[in-house]
């Protein structure tokens, strides 16, 4: 660990994840950027932050990186394991490589940017955050997503938006299949503005081709005794 003005470096070859996280949960006046070296796939890096700081993770992160984030900006300069930015409340989390399953699961607020592909169940149970994926997303993404927006510049795999509530998904590439009660709706000017704003905020160039809007048909909102469990 070494200290510079407004900057702090944690080398995880010498410090533990617990030391890093305890520092990040402490009094951070005057600290602007925290750099994490040699993360080497460690779990739970920079979780539970609640300060307007910047954390630069210089390598690959393991499970649950930047989970429960509030206010902070956390950048993973590599790939992220399962559950990156899960339950984020606010702030910004960026992954320069790919993110594994469950990225942004149940996130309430803030912006999650994944420059590569996201794995299965991206934005599952999303509760208000925005997610921008530069690549594609795996199966069952945005399953039961309640609020927020998911932008997919690449393709979406099976069962996109299954049992959606009020979250909205925009996909530029192919959609292999939609989940139950998800449907493609016409893009309005408001949708185009939203996509443009989010891509600009994410710093991702708009992909070729028109985005498709996927939202809930709301047919599962009310119990239908005649459906005989078949949806």
């Amino acid at each position, binding site marked *: 660990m070494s200290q510079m003005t407004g900057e702090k470096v944690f080398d995880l070859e010498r410090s533990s994840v617990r030391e890093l996280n305890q520092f990040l949960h402490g009094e951070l006046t005057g600290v602007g950027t925290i750099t994490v070296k040699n993360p*080497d796939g460690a779990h739970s890096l920079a979780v539970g932050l609640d300060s307007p700081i910047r954390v630069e993770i210089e390598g*690959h992160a*393991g499970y649950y990186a930047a989970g429960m984030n509030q206010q902070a900006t956390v950048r993973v300069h590599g*790939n992220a394991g*399962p559950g990156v930015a899960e339950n984020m409340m606010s702030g910004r989390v960026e992954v320069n490589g*790919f993110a*594994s399953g469950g990225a942004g699961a149940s996130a309430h607020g803030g912006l999650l940017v994944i420059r590569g592909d996201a794995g299965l169940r991206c934005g599952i149970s999303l509760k208000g955050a925005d997610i921008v994926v530069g690549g594609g997303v*795996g*199966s069952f993404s945005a399953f039961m997503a309640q609020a927020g927006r998911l932008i997919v510049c690449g393709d979406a795999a099976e069962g996109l938006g299954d049992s959606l509530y009020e979250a909205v998904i925009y996909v530029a590439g192919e959609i292999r299949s939609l989940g139950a009660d998800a449907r493609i709706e016409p893009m309005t000017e408001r949708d185009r503005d939203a996509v443009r704003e989010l891509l600009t905020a994410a710093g991702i160039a708009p992909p070729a081709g028109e985005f498709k809007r996927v939202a809930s048909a709301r047919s599962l909102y009310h119990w239908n005794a005649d459906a005989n469990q078949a949806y």
Partner: protein
Amino acid sequence: MCGIVGLLLKDAALRHRLGELMVPMLVGMTERGPDSSGMAVFTDSVAEGWRKVSLYCGDPAFDWPRFESELVGFLGEAQFDRKANHCIVTTRTDPARARDWCATRYPLVHVLSAGRSIDLYKDVGLPSEVAQRYGFEELSGTHLVGHTRMATESAVTPENAHPYTAGEDWCLVHNGSLANPGSLRRKLEKLGERFESDCDTEAACRYLHWRLSSGDDLEVALERAFVDFDGFFTFLMGTREKLALVRDPFACKPAVVAETDEYVAIASEFRSLAHLPGIRNAAVFEPKPAQVYAWSVQ
């Protein structure tokens, strides 16, 4: 939860370092599997007509010299390479004969593997302890399949540790759980497969062996498995020439692959790959669900 590791060395100059490169991979998966661990190592093949048989006995006081001399009497020519309570026998005999002989004369001695290339070690204990017990660091070979186990559906015993084998030069490790191992087992037993443990993974291993020995190639066998297996799995499989990896259609269990010009390395998590030489420039990717990945020894 369990941990999986695999390594295939493309660069022949690295083959004497296979064990040294692998031990940190295995130890890196300790949190995912502290109960027991195991390793199948594929070496250069013994000559046509010869077979290697890996044996294990749980009794630390077992009289190996007496066993060896009786086995030589039965098999004729044989060489023995013993480490702790583990022994690799090289013989001209059909491994099935050695297996039957052990079952009758020495029921405490288990045949872990048989083939021209495979050596297999598995035991209870932390991965670091098992690695030290059997000198994993000194192992050399072309490729390997390793596992650290956190038991969920059967007891912590050496027999229930992974890798599992069936037939010759075939092994499989598993992260996940199957919901229908009993019905698979009943079906396979009727077809003549003999089970040696009550672990769900053995059903998967013997099912795939049955399909491969019935003429399916690995891709076709795994397509059938997607239909017949009910449950979650990441499987890593080894044959004399290949490593193969597959995840279930829901990708419930993790896997990461790193590939360079020198090697292909596979692990449940990146932290088991972080120490490998040249890892910063490796192509790192997550295998897609329900897709068969295979790499061949060059």
